[in-house]
């Protein structure tokens, strides 16, 4: 523990010594506002300080970020998660409800306060009950005075893409996890947005080079993105610098980010369209009239025409697996801890469709898992106390962890790990089935924090357990978070206790009180006997296979009825015979 504690203190000490960090403070009054971003359907969205879209948070590496959240929604609790930030030493600021904090109920306030020591393109969003597609999401940009590419571009452009629903998530979720939707068909978005709008004009100047930071803030759809007449040079994925790599089209799953360099043409003769196109493979049934595309323009000359995008013959996106990190970090090759997660979709006894890791679907525990860690003393290393529906995995300090994820589902899934970036050491094509060990791994694997696993394929991820905390590993399709495709990684819980015991701020404890959420004990809130999980939240039971007692009784009765019936028929039918002989 002492080791990891000094690990934690060292960078802080360094940064105190050499930088003068600023504090960036935001006051967010979260409330419903009316908006109509696609011009097709006005609806209530979740805004901040009476406005929507939400502000892009821009900080410089090393800055302290303070976000004071006041929940004025009136009818929903909320939270904020800063996607991709490692939250080193500040696990309690990570944001997922019932994992590292209690929900912020209507009327309550909560302060996020952490330092950012990583450059790149991130985003923030609510991590509570599938809420962010209602609008509570925005990019989070961390500038880097030491960027290896800082001399290669003149200006920055931030382009968040997102699918868009005309209905609110609460209703959509109720219909999604319902007996009426036994196949688990995800609601299909109604339109596609860029910068929370459509037909976006981006002014650019001839001859200049731009760093375009793209974020997929969508709930569901992955995006194909291409710029007509311009080639992209990828230099960052999910906050990890890469060797500049050319691409004509990228594929960006929900929650992924790409920074690309785009060099403007030298003439201002024409404007060029760029397109974000939702991957419709993910959609169960494509409604008539759905336009999966959102168009914007690189505008060289406002007076010139903005041409409609050209039809393309096929989607041929860049394969991110071949990217090489700029720091050339070598593959983590001595694995200490292998975790195999087999994911599938299935129905439970309530008739609804759920998602499973190793046959367990995630259900939020009564006590936020972080608070269970902090209140369980030496027992914190025992997975049993974290409940039977949290897919908990306890990691030891500094071990090299390998996650083998086998996708036993015919859909594409973007998996995200909180608190870390991971090396992607293997990724199969579609229909490859479960992972089979192989040495054919890249020497300097790509790292990112959200990775696509292909239909019925697999992916192998590695990372070092050097960040004590409770970190979720989950599919970033918001529907699948709701249906339980979530695992809880409890990393070095004893070091976490050392970091955060008695360090949880008053506002965090206050929202627990306000929302009647217990803050100590095991997953069931039992503080006396940590192994007694009576009363914990559980998933509906499995569907019984074949005949149950009910079925056997019914079958016996039916058979009996038939035999008695036939006996009576026989009795009636024998009458003429009897009377004849008698």
């Amino acid at each position, binding site marked *: 523990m002492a080791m990891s504690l000094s690990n934690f203190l060292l960078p802080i000490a360094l940064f105190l010594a050499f930088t003068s960090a600023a504090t960036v403070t935001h006051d967010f009054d979260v409330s419903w506002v009316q908006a109509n971003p696609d011009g097709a359907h006005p609806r209530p969205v979740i805004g901040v300080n009476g406005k929507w879209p939400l502000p892009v948070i821009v900080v410089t590496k090393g800055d302290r970020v303070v976000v004071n959240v006041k929940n004025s929604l009136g009818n929903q609790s909320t939270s904020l998660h800063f996607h991709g930030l490692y939250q080193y030493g500040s696990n309690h600021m990570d944001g997922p409800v019932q994992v590292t904090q209690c929900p912020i109920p209507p009327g309550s306030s909560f302060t996020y306060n952490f330092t950012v020591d990583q450059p790149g393109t991130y985003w923030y969003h609510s991590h509570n009950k599938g809420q962010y597609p209602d609008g509570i999401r925005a990019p989070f940009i961390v500038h880097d005075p030491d960027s290896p590419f800082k001399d290669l571009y003149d200006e920055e452009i931030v382009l968040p893409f997102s699918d868009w629903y005309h209905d609110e998530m609460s209703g959509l979720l109720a219909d999604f996890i319902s*007996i*009426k*939707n*036994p*196949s*688990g*068909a995800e609601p299909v978005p109604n339109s596609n947005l860029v910068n929370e709008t459509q037909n976006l004009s981006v002014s650019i100047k001839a001859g200049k080079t731009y760093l375009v930071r793209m974020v997929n803030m969508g709930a569901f759809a992955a995006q194909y993105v291409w710029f007509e007449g311009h080639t992209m040079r990828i230099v960052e994925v999910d906050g990890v610098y890469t060797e500049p790599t050319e691409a004509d089209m990228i594929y960006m799953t929900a929650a992924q980010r790409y920074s690309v360099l785009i060099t403007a043409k030298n003439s201002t003769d024409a404007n060029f369209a760029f397109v974000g196109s939702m991957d419709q493979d993910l959609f*169960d*049934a494509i409604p008539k009239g759905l336009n999966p595309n959102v168009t914007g323009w690189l505008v060289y000359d406002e007076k010139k025409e903005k041409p409609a995008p050209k039809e393309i013959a096929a989607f041929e996106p860049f394969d991110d697996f071949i990217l090489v990190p700029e720091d050339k970090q070598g593959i983590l090759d001595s694995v200490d801890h292998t975790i195999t997660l087999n994911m599938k979709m*299935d*129905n439970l*006894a*309530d*008739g609804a*469709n759920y998602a499973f890791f190793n046959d367990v679907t995630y259900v939020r525990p009564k006590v936020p898992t972080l608070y269970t860690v902090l209140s369980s003393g030496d027992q914190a290393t025992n997975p049993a106390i974290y409940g039977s529906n949290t897919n908990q995995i306890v990691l030891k300090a500094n071990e090299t962890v390998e996650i083998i994820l086998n996708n036993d589902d015919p859909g594409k899934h973007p998996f995200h790990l909180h608190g870390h970036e991971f090396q992607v050491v293997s990724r199969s094509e579609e229909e490859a089935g479960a992972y089979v060990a192989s040495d054919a791994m890249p020497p300097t694997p790509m790292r990112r924090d959200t990775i696509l696993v292909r239909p019925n394929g697999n992916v192998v991820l590695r990372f070092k357990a050097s960040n004590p905390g409770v970190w979720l590993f989950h599919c970033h399709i918001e529907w699948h978070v709701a249906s339980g495709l979530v695992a809880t990684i409890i990393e070095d819980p004893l070091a976490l206790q050392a970091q955060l015991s008695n360090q949880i701020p008053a506002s965090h404890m206050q929202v627990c009180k306000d929302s009647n959420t217990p803050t100590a004990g095991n997953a069931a809130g039992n503080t006396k006997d940590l192994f007694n999980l009576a009363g914990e939240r559980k998933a509906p039971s499995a*569907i019984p*296979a*074949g*005949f*149950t007692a*009910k*079925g*056997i009784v*019914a*079958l016996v*009765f*039916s058979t009996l*009825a*038939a035999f*008695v*019936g*036939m006996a*009576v*028929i*026989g*009795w*009636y*039918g*024998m*009458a*003429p*015979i009897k*009377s*004849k002989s008698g």
Partner: protein
Amino acid sequence: MVNVFAVPVFFICFRECLETSIIVSVLLAFLKQTLGPEHDASVRKRLVRQIWLGVGLGIFICVVIGAGLIGAFYKAGKEAFDSAELIWEGVFAIIASLIITLMGAALLRVNKLQDKWRVKIAKALENNDTSRLSMNGRFKKWCEKYAMFLLPFVTVLREGIEAVLFIGGVGLGMPATSFPLAVICGLGAGGLVGFLIYKGGNRTSLQIFLIISTCFLYLIAAGLFSKGVWDFEANAWTKTAGEGVTEAGSGPGSYDIRKSVWHVNCCTPGSKGDGGWGIFNSLFGWQNSATIGSVLSYNLYWLVVIVGFLLLGFKERKGHWPLQKKPAPAAGDIRSESDGSSGVVEQKHEGAATLNVREVNA
């Protein structure tokens, strides 16, 4: 199996053919008795030929009408019913079940049928002498002359068209390929039993045969009734769950778990490759996914059948319904109904038991 042999169709054909062959056999027997060896052999030959001509012509017309009617049924049905297939399958299953239920009891009283026709024919022929010449006297005279032709002709035609209508009603939910074999087998079996009756073979074993086939008939009808209810429920579920139902195949989601009594992910009736379960389905109404409705309806069906037969049996033995006052002594006199060979027409029978209505009207 389900695609090749439609069990309800078989039984309808069997039933109708049996009735026809009984009438023919009664006619032939009648000729044998009344026109004994002392009569002109040529006259007898001519009358026998008349009978067979009537049968043949009747069958021919039936086949023509039947083919046309069923063809039209099918064409119209496929277009009209495709959109709501489950509803129609359910409706037809229940109609078929009711038809079989009403017909089935009569099968157990086939011997009575024989007696009744004997009386009827006797009457028809007796009327020859007491003919009251009237306006349509010539027509009547013609009829009398060709009675031996007309009787079987009309009977065959009537039973045949009835069969066609029943088959049309029952069979719409079934594949066309399942018809021919079932029709042929049904006609063959009906003819055979008719022949056995004519030959006056062992009546007891014949009756046992009839009991067994009636039992099968009611098993099928119970299954159909339950399947009809099942179809309605499946239709409601498809409406609720939409696309997902088809996607789910026979797994979870293909049925409404709230109403499920048992579900096994195999043994699906009707699906290709599971032929055995198809037989199970058409004989006993087996479902791999039983619902509260389908189980209850199966048991209720049997309850009604049991009560019905008990009432019929009571009525036959006591001459009145339970809880009903004993009939007046005058009516009580003709309580010889169970004596099949007496040849007395059981008038009291008429209209009393719904299950026997058809037999009485015949």
